Protein backbone atom coordinates (compact mmCIF):
# COMPACT_ATOMS: atom_id res chain seq x y z
CA UNK A 1 0.00 0.00 0.00
CA UNK A 2 1.83 3.13 -1.18
CA UNK A 3 1.09 6.78 -0.65
CA UNK A 4 1.96 9.74 -2.85
CA UNK A 5 2.85 12.80 -0.74
CA UNK A 6 2.63 16.16 -2.55
CA UNK A 7 4.49 18.82 -0.55
CA UNK A 8 3.82 22.46 -1.54
CA UNK A 9 5.26 24.56 1.30
CA UNK A 10 8.78 25.36 2.43
CA UNK A 11 9.85 23.67 5.69
CA UNK A 12 11.64 26.91 6.56
CA UNK A 13 8.21 28.52 6.89
CA UNK A 14 5.67 25.87 7.86
CA UNK A 15 5.75 22.46 9.59
CA UNK A 16 3.91 20.73 6.73
CA UNK A 17 7.00 18.83 5.51
CA UNK A 18 8.00 17.85 9.06
CA UNK A 19 4.54 16.35 9.56
CA UNK A 20 4.80 14.60 6.20
CA UNK A 21 8.09 13.00 7.31
CA UNK A 22 6.32 11.65 10.39
CA UNK A 23 3.80 9.74 8.25
CA UNK A 24 5.87 8.59 5.29
CA UNK A 25 6.55 4.85 4.91
CA UNK A 26 8.78 2.54 2.86
CA UNK A 27 8.16 2.69 -0.94
CA UNK A 28 6.06 5.84 -0.67
CA UNK A 29 6.78 8.71 -3.05
CA UNK A 30 7.23 12.39 -2.19
CA UNK A 31 6.74 15.00 -4.92
CA UNK A 32 7.82 18.58 -4.23
CA UNK A 33 5.92 21.36 -6.02
CA UNK A 34 5.86 25.17 -5.72
CA UNK A 35 7.75 26.36 -2.63
CA UNK A 36 7.97 22.72 -1.51
CA UNK A 37 10.99 22.49 -3.83
CA UNK A 38 13.01 24.46 -1.25
CA UNK A 39 12.77 21.40 1.04
CA UNK A 40 15.27 19.57 -1.16
CA UNK A 41 17.99 21.64 0.49
CA UNK A 42 16.44 21.64 3.96
CA UNK A 43 18.40 19.83 6.72
CA UNK A 44 15.38 17.76 7.81
CA UNK A 45 15.45 15.81 4.55
CA UNK A 46 18.47 13.99 5.98
CA UNK A 47 16.18 12.57 8.70
CA UNK A 48 14.45 10.38 6.10
CA UNK A 49 14.93 6.91 7.53
CA UNK A 50 12.67 5.01 5.10
CA UNK A 51 13.18 4.11 1.45
CA UNK A 52 11.25 6.83 -0.39
CA UNK A 53 11.36 8.17 -3.93
CA UNK A 54 11.95 11.92 -4.06
CA UNK A 55 10.70 13.85 -7.09
CA UNK A 56 10.25 17.55 -7.92
CA UNK A 57 8.38 19.40 -10.67
CA UNK A 58 11.01 20.51 -13.15
CA UNK A 59 9.45 23.90 -13.99
CA UNK A 60 9.11 24.81 -10.31
CA UNK A 61 12.72 23.83 -9.59
CA UNK A 62 14.09 25.74 -12.59
CA UNK A 63 12.02 28.86 -11.87
CA UNK A 64 13.59 29.02 -8.41
CA UNK A 65 17.11 28.27 -9.65
CA UNK A 66 17.35 25.34 -7.22
CA UNK A 67 20.40 23.13 -7.71
CA UNK A 68 19.55 19.39 -7.44
CA UNK A 69 23.05 17.96 -7.82
CA UNK A 70 23.59 17.20 -4.11
CA UNK A 71 20.10 15.79 -3.65
CA UNK A 72 18.56 12.35 -4.27
CA UNK A 73 15.62 13.86 -6.14
CA UNK A 74 14.71 13.41 -9.79
CA UNK A 75 12.61 15.86 -11.78
CA UNK A 76 9.24 15.12 -13.36
CA UNK A 77 6.69 17.10 -15.36
CA UNK A 78 3.12 17.90 -14.26
CA UNK A 79 1.80 15.18 -16.61
CA UNK A 80 4.02 12.62 -14.93
CA UNK A 81 2.66 13.76 -11.56
CA UNK A 82 -0.87 13.09 -12.78
CA UNK A 83 0.19 9.61 -13.93
CA UNK A 84 1.77 9.00 -10.50
CA UNK A 85 -1.55 9.63 -8.77
CA UNK A 86 -2.89 6.53 -10.55
CA UNK A 87 0.09 4.36 -9.58
CA UNK A 88 -0.27 4.85 -5.80
CA UNK A 89 -3.06 3.78 -3.50
CA UNK A 90 -3.71 7.19 -2.04
CA UNK A 91 -2.56 10.81 -2.34
CA UNK A 92 -1.93 13.31 0.48
CA UNK A 93 -1.34 16.98 -0.38
CA UNK A 94 0.59 18.78 2.35
CA UNK A 95 -0.40 22.45 2.10
Amino acid at each position, binding site marked *: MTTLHIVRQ*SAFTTSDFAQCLQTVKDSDCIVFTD*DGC*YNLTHPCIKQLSVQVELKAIIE*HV*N*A*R*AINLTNTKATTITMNELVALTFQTDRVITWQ
Partner: protein
Amino acid sequence: MTLHQPNKSLALLNSKAPYANNAGKDALDIALVFGSFEQATALFFQGDGVYQLMQGQDGDIISVKDYLKTFSAFEFYDIEDVYVCQQSLIERGLASDFHIEQVQVLNQHDFASKLTTHSTILRF
Protein backbone atom coordinates in the same frame (compact mmCIF):
# COMPACT_ATOMS: atom_id res chain seq x y z
CA MET B 1 7.09 77.62 17.58
CA THR B 2 8.68 75.35 15.00
CA LEU B 3 7.41 71.84 14.53
CA HIS B 4 10.39 69.50 14.53
CA GLN B 5 9.62 66.66 12.14
CA PRO B 6 11.77 63.71 13.42
CA ASN B 7 13.93 62.05 10.74
CA LYS B 8 11.52 59.36 9.50
CA SER B 9 12.66 56.37 7.48
CA LEU B 10 10.94 53.22 6.22
CA ALA B 11 12.18 49.64 6.48
CA LEU B 12 10.54 46.95 4.35
CA LEU B 13 11.13 43.51 5.87
CA ASN B 14 10.72 40.69 3.32
CA SER B 15 10.15 37.22 4.77
CA LYS B 16 8.44 35.29 1.93
CA ALA B 17 9.79 33.37 -1.06
CA PRO B 18 9.19 35.04 -4.43
CA TYR B 19 6.57 32.98 -6.25
CA ALA B 20 4.18 31.43 -3.71
CA ASN B 21 2.31 34.69 -3.09
CA ASN B 22 2.39 38.42 -3.86
CA ALA B 23 4.14 39.50 -0.67
CA GLY B 24 7.46 40.21 -2.40
CA LYS B 25 5.81 42.12 -5.24
CA ASP B 26 3.78 44.24 -2.81
CA ALA B 27 6.91 45.13 -0.84
CA LEU B 28 8.70 46.09 -4.04
CA ASP B 29 5.83 48.30 -5.19
CA ILE B 30 5.86 50.19 -1.88
CA ALA B 31 9.63 50.59 -2.02
CA LEU B 32 9.41 52.15 -5.48
CA VAL B 33 6.54 54.45 -4.47
CA PHE B 34 8.46 55.72 -1.43
CA GLY B 35 11.62 55.97 -3.51
CA SER B 36 9.89 58.07 -6.16
CA PHE B 37 8.84 60.52 -3.40
CA GLU B 38 12.48 60.58 -2.20
CA GLN B 39 11.62 59.02 1.17
CA ALA B 40 14.45 57.21 2.94
CA THR B 41 13.71 53.54 2.29
CA ALA B 42 15.66 50.39 3.18
CA LEU B 43 14.98 46.77 2.24
CA PHE B 44 15.60 43.85 4.59
CA PHE B 45 15.48 40.16 3.59
CA GLN B 46 15.03 37.49 6.24
CA GLY B 47 13.86 33.84 6.36
CA ASP B 48 12.47 32.63 3.04
CA GLY B 49 12.65 36.26 1.86
CA VAL B 50 16.33 35.70 1.04
CA TYR B 51 15.23 33.53 -1.88
CA GLN B 52 14.10 36.71 -3.63
CA LEU B 53 17.75 37.73 -4.05
CA MET B 54 19.06 34.50 -5.52
CA GLN B 55 20.65 34.65 -8.96
CA GLY B 56 19.24 32.81 -11.99
CA GLN B 57 15.57 32.66 -11.11
CA ASP B 58 12.96 32.95 -13.84
CA GLY B 59 9.28 33.31 -13.06
CA ASP B 60 8.35 33.11 -16.74
CA ILE B 61 8.97 29.35 -16.60
CA ILE B 62 5.96 29.00 -14.32
CA SER B 63 4.02 31.83 -15.99
CA VAL B 64 4.44 34.16 -13.04
CA LYS B 65 5.17 37.86 -13.70
CA ASP B 66 8.84 38.10 -12.78
CA TYR B 67 9.01 41.19 -10.57
CA LEU B 68 12.55 40.26 -9.45
CA LYS B 69 13.95 41.87 -12.59
CA THR B 70 12.66 45.22 -11.31
CA PHE B 71 15.13 45.04 -8.41
CA SER B 72 17.78 46.38 -10.78
CA ALA B 73 15.88 49.71 -10.87
CA PHE B 74 16.66 50.42 -7.21
CA GLU B 75 19.46 52.86 -8.02
CA PHE B 76 17.10 55.04 -10.07
CA TYR B 77 14.91 55.36 -6.98
CA ASP B 78 17.88 56.06 -4.67
CA ILE B 79 17.27 52.78 -2.81
CA GLU B 80 20.79 51.89 -1.74
CA ASP B 81 20.28 50.20 1.61
CA VAL B 82 19.60 46.50 1.01
CA TYR B 83 20.36 44.09 3.87
CA VAL B 84 20.14 40.30 4.05
CA CYS B 85 20.23 38.07 7.14
CA GLN B 86 23.34 35.89 7.13
CA GLN B 87 21.71 33.32 9.47
CA SER B 88 18.86 32.80 7.00
CA LEU B 89 21.36 32.20 4.18
CA ILE B 90 23.28 29.67 6.25
CA GLU B 91 20.11 27.79 7.29
CA ARG B 92 19.20 27.41 3.63
CA GLY B 93 22.66 26.53 2.43
CA LEU B 94 22.73 29.58 0.18
CA ALA B 95 25.81 31.46 -1.01
CA SER B 96 25.84 35.27 -1.33
CA ASP B 97 25.05 34.87 -5.01
CA PHE B 98 22.63 37.76 -5.51
CA HIS B 99 21.12 39.15 -8.70
CA ILE B 100 21.64 42.74 -7.52
CA GLU B 101 24.86 44.39 -6.44
CA GLN B 102 24.77 46.46 -3.30
CA VAL B 103 23.45 43.82 -0.88
CA GLN B 104 24.97 43.93 2.61
CA VAL B 105 25.08 40.60 4.47
CA LEU B 106 24.60 41.20 8.22
CA ASN B 107 24.83 38.77 11.10
CA GLN B 108 21.73 38.31 13.24
CA HIS B 109 22.66 40.98 15.78
CA ASP B 110 23.63 43.65 13.28
CA PHE B 111 20.56 42.84 11.16
CA ALA B 112 18.26 43.40 14.14
CA SER B 113 19.95 46.60 15.28
CA LYS B 114 20.06 48.03 11.74
CA LEU B 115 16.35 47.23 11.32
CA THR B 116 15.40 49.03 14.50
CA THR B 117 17.13 52.23 13.43
CA HIS B 118 14.14 52.83 11.15
CA SER B 119 11.07 54.62 12.45
CA THR B 120 8.58 52.60 10.41
CA ILE B 121 8.87 48.88 9.67
CA LEU B 122 6.52 47.06 7.30
CA ARG B 123 6.82 43.24 7.16
CA PHE B 124 5.76 41.20 4.15
